[in-house]
Every structure is written in C-alpha cells, then in structure tokens.
C-alpha cells in the first residue's frame, strides 16, 4: 500500500492541471455548450501533441506505452475544469475497442490518426432509453449479400457524432454462417445515417443517431463475429474508471468552491463557514472526496498493473456516483441563490454529477455487480 503519486505522474498531473486551467476556464466551458462543435480544435491538437491521446497505446501505433493510471490522472484534471473534448469517446473508448478487437492492419490504419487527433471516433452503444445494450443490442445488422450488411436501428447519447469520422456500434448480426453481437465501424458520412443533436443537462455535444439501412461491408467488422459483447465488456471497466476520474476531479473542485465560498460569505455577522452545521457539511464533502479518490485510484491502479478488479471498478463507480452527486447537492444548499444562477460555475458540476451518475450504470447497478462478485 502506497498512496503517493510517483514523480513522473506528478509532473504529468501538474502539466495537465496547468493546461486545463489555462485552456478551460469556466467561461470557455460555458461557451462550448453553445458552440456547434462543442470543443476547441486547437485544444484537441494540443492534447494530441502533449501525447495525451496516445498515452496508453503501443509505440508502434504512435502511442507512448504509458500507464493507465497516468491516463486516469489526466481525466481527474479534465474533470476539475470540465474541459470538453471527444477524448473519452474517441481516444479511449473507440481506440481501446479497436486495440482489443481489431486485427493488426486495422490497428495500424486507425490508431495512429486517432492518437494524433486527426480522426475522431465515437461510440454508439446506447439504446433509445440511453442504456448500454451490447449484451442484447437493439441495433440489427442483416446480411445483404456479397459480404455486405445493412444496419438498422437507433443509438442515442452518441457523443460528438457530428464530427466523428467513424461510429463504432455493437449490432446484433443475423448471418447465415455466423451471428451474434458484433462490432462494426460505420463511417460518419454513411448514407442512411441521421444525426440529431440532443440538448442534455450538461450541454455536452451528444446525438441521437438513426441507422436507416446503413450499408457496411465485412471490412467494417471489428474482431470476430458474435464477440462484440466480450470486447465491449473488456474495455468498459477502463472507461468506467476514467469516468470516475472525471467525477473525482469534479468533486474536488466542488469542495474547493464550497469551502472558499463559506469562508468569504458573511451571514449573521460572521463567515458562513463558522457555523457548525456548515462545517459538518463541508467535512462531509471532504469525506466524500477522500473516499471517492481512494476507491477510484484503487481501480485505476489495479487496472494499471493488470490485476483482476471487476469488483473494485464496480465499487468505484457505485460510490463515486453517489458521493459526487450528494456533494453537489450539499454545495447547492450552502451556496444559496448564487449557486443556482447560470453565471456561477457550480451548476456545471451539479449537472455533470447527475449525467455521470446516469452514464455507465448508477450506484444501484454497480452494487449489483459487487453483489455478484461477492458470490451472492
């Protein structure tokens, strides 16, 4: 048991902190909500140049073969300022799926441009209720002869679909020889693809995508037919853990904002923060932060060293979901009116906490996984 970051990680952390603070102050984040793209291409390039996008990939694809734990630290920093970008969907989720499922050729074709930020990929794994349904996908792929398939169905909450060069989906393939859940990549410009921007709580760019008989070929299949669920389940723990990183980052910002506010806000002739009830609320947020960080770091660190950690990942997401959300609710209570305004920054985190809770399984669903791992 050791609870300190190593020197290299600390350096990465402080450069990431600096980057996020400089590039992503809250007015910028709020502008991006109204922006059509929803992120800055300039930042995106810089993130690629800093090596962030390729951090965990093999050097032969242009990555730096770095540690997953360091990637987690990046997402913690990103969460602090809510820097918007397709990092998670493109260079993590899609990239890892390609890395996991793709053959060497595909990897060599796709990973380098993803890592360099030249291609943006995204993920369409959520059904019309917003649930990940790769185990029994509502999206269908039918053989249409000559090694071709036709994909039909709907995906929603597909991040950055409007700029995505490819969308990776898991479709239920019904073929003559082989069938089952299968990963496909679909060109973002494929005909039959209808993208509708969705206005959500956070305002992050996300889309509903309707597949109206979209044609793909067998070259668009990632990995083996029928193995889609397995690939996704292999990659998901990493995505979930990085989402926890984002949440821990957000939570730490909420604590700082709140403590600062109650120190300077004068009420009844003294700082709000001198009231014992307020102090205990702040201690509660502080406890939520410490505990969330520990349990999330644990998941990241065990993934990093390749330790089996299905339970630890589930514990992290279950706990962070509740802790972050409750912290933003307490923070709202302590901020009073000002925290409820658009002008203030607190709402960015209040909204992020709710959306992050609902993404990739809330605390209940991850407790189910914990229960499973406990042998219940």
């Amino acid at each position, binding site marked *: 048991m050791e609870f300190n970051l190593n020197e290299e990680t600390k350096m990465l952390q402080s450069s990431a902190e600096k980057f996020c603070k400089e590039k992503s102050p809250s007015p910028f984040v709020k502008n991006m909500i109204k922006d059509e793209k929803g992120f800055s291409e300039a930042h995106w390039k810089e993130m690629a140049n800093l090596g962030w996008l390729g951090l965990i990939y093999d050097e032969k694809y242009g990555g730096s073969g770095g540690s997953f734990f360091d990637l987690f630290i990046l997402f913690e920093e990103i969460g602090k300022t809510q820097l918007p970008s397709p990092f998670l969907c493109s260079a993590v989720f899609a990239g890892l799926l390609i890395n996991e499922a793709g053959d060497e050729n595909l990897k060599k074709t796709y990973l380098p441009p993803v890592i360099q930020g030249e291609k943006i990929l995204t993920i369409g794994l959520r059904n019309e209720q917003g649930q990940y349904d790769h185990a029994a996908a509502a999206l269908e792929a039918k053989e249409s002869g000559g090694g071709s398939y036709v994909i039909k169905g709907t995906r929603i909450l597909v991040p950055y679909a409007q700029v995505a060069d490819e969308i990776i989906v898991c479709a239920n393939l019904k073929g003559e020889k082989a069938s089952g859940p299968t990963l496909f990549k679909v060109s973002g410009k494929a005909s039959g693809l209808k993208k509708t921007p969705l206005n959500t709580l956070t305002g992050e760019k996300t889309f509903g995508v309707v597949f109206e008989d979209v044609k793909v070929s067998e070259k668009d299949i990632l990995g083996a037919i029928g193995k889609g669920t397995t690939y996704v389940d292999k990659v998901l723990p990493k995505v979930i853990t990085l989402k926890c990183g984002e949440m821990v980052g957000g939570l730490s910002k909420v604590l700082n904002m709140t403590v600062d506010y109650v120190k300077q806000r004068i009420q009844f002739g003294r700082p709000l923060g001198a009231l014992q009830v307020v102090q205990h609320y702040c201690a509660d947020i502080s406890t939520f932060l410490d505990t969330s960080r520990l349990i999330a770091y644990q998941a990241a660190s065990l993934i990093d060293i390749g330790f089996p950690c299905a339970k630890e990942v589930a514990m992290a997401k279950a706990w962070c979901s509740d802790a972050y959300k409750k912290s933003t609710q307490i923070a709202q*209570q302590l901020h009073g009116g000002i925290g409820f305004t658009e002008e203030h920054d607190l709402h960015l985190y209040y909204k992020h906490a709710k959306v992050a809770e609902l993404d990739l399984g809330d605390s209940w669903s991850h407790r189910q996984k914990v229960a499973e791992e406990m042998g219940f």
Partner: protein
Amino acid sequence: MRFTFTEEQNKFRQTVRDFLQAELKAGIFVTKSGGLAEGNNQEFSKKMAQRGWIGLTWPQKYGGQGRTYVEKAILIEELFKVQAPVAYHFLADRQIGPSIIHFGSEWQKEYFLPRFVKADENMKFCLLFSEPNAGSDLVNVATTATKEGDFYTLRGQKVWTSGGHQSDYGWLLARTKIDSSVPRHESCSQFIVDMKAPGVTVRPIINMVGCHTFNEVFLDEVKIDRKFMVGQENDAFKQIMAQMDYERAGMERLLQNYPVYEKVINYVKEMGKTRKGDPFYHWVQDSVAQLEIEFNIGRLLCYNTAWTIDMGRKPTSEAALTKAYCNQYEQRLNDLATRVLGPASQIREGSPWTLYDGEIADCYLWSPSYALQGGSVEVLKNIVALRRLELPRK
C-alpha cells in the same frame, strides 16, 4: 381526530377539480411541473376570482370568503396537482393580502384587497426582501427608505426577486432608521413599491435551468408616497414573522413537482407488467413506495399546518418543520425520478427521445431552488429547535 374530509369539503374539491379539468380540456394550460414559476395568466386568475377562489380565507368584509385554511389547502392541492397557472395572483393571495389585512392602512385595504380578489389588471406582486448581503439574515438589509415630508426615498439593491420583471408592485423591506444604537430588527419597515416608478430598474438573472424568473432590482432614488408604507414604522420584522408563516405553510411546498411524481408512479406500474422479478424493478418499487410514504406524510403535515391556523394558533414551528420536510421530499423525488426513468431523463425539452418533454431533467435542475424561498432547510431547523424545543441560543 378526523383524517377524512367533510362532505362539504369533498364537494368543494370536486368543484375545483371540475373547473380545472374543463380548463385543461379547453387547452387553457397544460400540466407540467414548474407552473408556479411560469404560469403568469391573468385571464385564468380572473376565472378563479369569479369563483371566489382568491382570498378564500380572507374576511368577507375585504371581499374574501371567510373560509378555512383547510379548504384553502384543498384548493391549492387541486391547483398544483395539475399545475394550474396561478402565478399572477399567487403571492397576493398567499401573503400580500393577509399582510395588508393584518397590518395595512384603511386606504391600503380599500385599494388593494378588492383588486386582489378580482384579479384586476396591474396587481401582480413580487417580494423585495433579499439583498446581496442579506439572505437568511434579513436583518442585514441595507436598502434605505428615507422620510422626506410625505415621501420616502428608496435607495438600494434587491436580489433573487422572483417574477420581478412581470410584477406591478413590489413588497419591500427597507431600513428606516440608520442608528447603530437601535437593534437592527427594530429599524426596518415595509413598503409597497410601484415597479414602474422612476428609478426602479429590473435586471434579469438567468438561473441554471436556463430560465429567467429571478431578478436584481435596483432602487435609485425612488420616491414613494408615505401611504405606501405598511403598518408601523420600524415594525417590519414583527410583521414579517407572521408573513413568513404564510409563505411557508402552504400545500404548494409539497406539490411543485407533483406531475413528475405521477409520471414516476405510472412508469413503475407499466414496468411491473413486464419486469416483475427483475431486481431493478424491486429496487424501484421499494424506493417509490418510500416516496409515497413521504408524500403522504408531507400532505398530512400541510393539512395539519392549515388546521393549526384555522384553530387560531400561530403555525410558526409547524410551518417551518413542514417546509423543511417538503423541500427535502421534492429534492429526493426529482433525484429518484432520473434514476427510475434512466439515462434518457437527462435529455431536455425539444429534443427527440426526451422523457416527458424534458420535465424530468428540468425538475432535477429546479430542485435546489425550493430551499431558496421562505428559508433554507437549515434556517427552518433552527426555528424548530429554538421556537418549539426552546433550545438555548447561546
């Protein structure tokens, strides 16, 4: 003890319900949470006025109906269940009218009360209490009202003024004695301010839902006739105490998100048809049953508070306890709703795949606001501790 309604009360409820159903059918309004914030509809208020439903509890000599607060609670319950657009008269009915009845001058009574109960033009009120440095601690108000002959000159700034941009009058708290030797709570007075008077500037505050309901109000040398002062000079805090009870006491505190609750229940019923035996369904039904219990208790608390007023008692601690309870209930409701309904509940109004046209998402955003008016949960618990339990201040 009687936990049922009298036949007369049931009849009254049915009359209200019939009226509202007819209005709904006629498309006068739609049922969507947030009615209080958005439903500014003088025409609708006029219809209520015609039925005697504004000033229901006020004495008949002021145009009221002299009916009980329990009946008022029934009225409010029915209005809020369908989120009727009552914003035009709501504040006047709930607290401005009663304050004028208790503390107002004859002129004020004669001028305002008949107009309130008729929902006349230009009778929408807002509250000018909070200031940047006076929120929970209202005694800190810095806005001054300086007497100059028959006039007062107002100088200062108010904030968090709900509906300030749509209001004809503001109900103002201002300092009338600038003398540090006088206790602060004995140096303020209340006024009625014409929001169109020269020197009044209203600036919108956009909230995190993306809506404009709050405002900043700047008072720059606003001159008002002394007849607009309410009650005794420097007596504001005694008056406000009583007023606050009314502000806190109402059934609306439980029902601002009732349509969400109804939707959740219906959703779970549907779910039960196909997913019995599913662990998620079991979690959901357990959670929603808990909400149902909380809701029912909240309702009893509200009726109990109304009944306390009917008994001629000051409902200070009942109202405080009830509002704290209801605020927390509504926050839990909106949080749970998103989890029962799942990730699509994050999609807002106007987008496809949204649930109930964004109502679930919006209500989660509105949640923190319920504690902003009429006292935060913390302030209300202080009141219960100090007033009811008589715990020591020091």
